[in-house]
């Protein structure tokens, strides 16, 4: 293998993505053991992948919000510019009109202008005796302009869910000349369609079914809660291996329970395996149905309940996800021996917090994150980080957020 081949065919990426056949993989590995330059390149891409993987959630959420904001920012600017130009033209016209009245300059005649034109001029009105920039200005009205009602693209019905910022109903970002507003589901500049974009990017279903909406007083707080409430599917791999980066690593059933995945009830396992097949394929609806079947046969199985809760959460049913996730905790606590807590507990607390954030129960979300942060596991750091962020949001919005103690 030549170094040029490695660069030309992007073999490093293919290798790291597991896209090389076994023979090519072996050849590639021998090459990087012999060639320091190529090894450095693979290391760089590997490190880059790890970093990207660790902040994938942030990048996806942030980029979609930014993308959406960018689009509307320019539409808003363009509309403002048009309106300001229109108003400026009117004002200029008025100024010239009053100026011409003061200097007895013949004003253009028209029925509409007679009221404003106080001149007693009887000069014939031709195109030549009008002021250069004042022609027909009297007749200029907004009706003649091309600025019309908000032409915001339809994005569906008005929001009945989502965060209600500053207690106001959602309004368009666009300025409407006639004072009417068009429904566009925007929430202080963040359109609800962001959710759908994020979903498309993540290939995950929308996650924001909110049963009651906390009134958030600032854009930043709302965005932060949006980020905190967004759920990324914890990976599940049949080989028992998950990427060590990110929180998904600890969510492999084998890894979490610390023992082989064997159930006393073998009848439920086919359902569970099929469900996990569907889960890996991101067919969360199928996975949910199968997990519900598995849960009937194994009501106390931590893995079944956990993934059922996660699937419901991913299908925008945070309220329904709470019961199975709590069942995980009940089962885990019942089987706990001394201080030996199952890693399922931490994962269940973590995703319960996500569900709570989505339904607006921030007090309970904080409690769940606290529990997750105190437990040992790979979600500890992420739980601590999210806890701090949630506490910051709650502290800044305390008077408005339900669940906060009254000041």
């Amino acid at each position, binding site marked *: 293998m030549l170094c040029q081949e490695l660069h030309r065919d992007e073999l490093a990426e293919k290798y790291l993505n597991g896209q090389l056949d076994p023979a090519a993989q072996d050849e590639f590995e021998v090459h990087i053991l012999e060639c320091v*330059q190529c*090894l450095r390149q693979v290391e760089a891409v590997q490190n880059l992948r790890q*970093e990207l993987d660790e902040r994938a959630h942030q990048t996806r959420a942030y*980029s979609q919000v930014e993308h959406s904001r960018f689009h509307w920012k320019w539409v808003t600017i363009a509309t403002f510019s048009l309106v300001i130009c229109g108003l400026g033209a009117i004002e200029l016209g008025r100024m010239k009109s009053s100026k011409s009245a003061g200097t007895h300059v013949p004003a253009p005649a028209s029925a509409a202008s007679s009221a404003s034109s106080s001149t007693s001029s009887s000069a014939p009105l031709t195109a030549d005796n009008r002021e250069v920039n004042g022609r027909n200005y009297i007749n200029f009205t907004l009706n003649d302009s091309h600025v019309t009602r908000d032409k915001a693209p339809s994005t569906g019905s008005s929001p009945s869910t989502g965060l209600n910022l500053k207690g106001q109903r959602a309004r368009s970002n666009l300025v409407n000349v006639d004072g009417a507003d068009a429904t566009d589901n925007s929430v202080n500049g963040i359109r609800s369609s962001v959710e759908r974009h994020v979903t498309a990017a993540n290939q995950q279903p929308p996650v924001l079914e909110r049963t009651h909406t906390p009134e958030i007083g600032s854009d930043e707080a709302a965005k932060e809660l949006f980020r905190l409430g967004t759920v990324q599917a914890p990976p599940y791999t049949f080989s028992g291996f998950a990427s060590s980066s990110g929180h998904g690593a600890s969510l492999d059933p084998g890894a979490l329970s610390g023992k082989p995945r064997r159930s006393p009830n073998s009848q439920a396992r086919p359902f569970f395996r099929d469900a996990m097949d569907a889960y890996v394929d991101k067919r969360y609806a199928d996975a949910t149905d199968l997990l519900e079947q598995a849960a009937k046969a194994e009501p106390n199985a931590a893995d079944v309940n956990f993934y059922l809760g996660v699937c419901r959460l991913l299908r925008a049913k945070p309220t329904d996800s709470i019961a199975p996730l709590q069942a995980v905790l009940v089962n885990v606590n019942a089987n706990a021996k001394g201080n030996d807590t199952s890693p399922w507990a931490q994962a269940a607390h973590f995703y319960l917090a996500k569900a709570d954030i989505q339904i607006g129960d921030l007090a309970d979300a904080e409690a769940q994150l606290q529990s997750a942060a105190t437990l040992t596991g790979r979600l500890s750091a992420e739980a601590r980080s999210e806890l701090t962020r949630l506490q910051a949001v709650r502290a800044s919005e305390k008077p408005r957020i339900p669940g906060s103690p009254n000041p």
Partner: protein
Amino acid sequence: MQEEPPVASATMSEANAAAVVLAQRILAGDRSAEDELVSTYRRGVFVIAVARTRDRDAALDLTQEILIAILKALRSGQLRESTKLAAFIQGTARNLINNYLRTKAHHAEVELDDEAYSADAVEELESLERRRLVQRELESFSITDRQILLLSLVDGHSLAEVAQRLNLSHEAVRARKSRAVRKITKKFARMSQT
């Protein structure tokens, strides 16, 4: 058109020659040669272990195990063709990693001193520094660049798919990705040299 000098080939020939000598020194019981082998191949073995297991913690343990197994084999003269040291190391690494993946339990049955071949503090620091470098570079990229890298390197989407998702042209995605990866790779290589 001037032909590019075969730098890589020359480097690899030298590496092969050095590998032969190294294998012979280990067979002769030279402990410093063992240290040299470990420092030469540790990073490569670790990269392979991470790529195959996708688990850095497991890869760290496996790297130890693989290096110890290789040293044991070299000491007992199991390497038939000393020119193929890299292939021997890769084969050993592959087999041990596959065993690990099959059993998910790796109990190193070794008589060698583990501590002698564990990653030293300098190596740990270097690894940390490399990570910081990547973090810094990543921070400096635009959100679009980061998204391109995420979709292509982590999610495994083709450039065409990435272009479609981000509403960019294929060429723009290719250029942006290539520039970003090249930038990081260059800095990475520069840091490794210093």
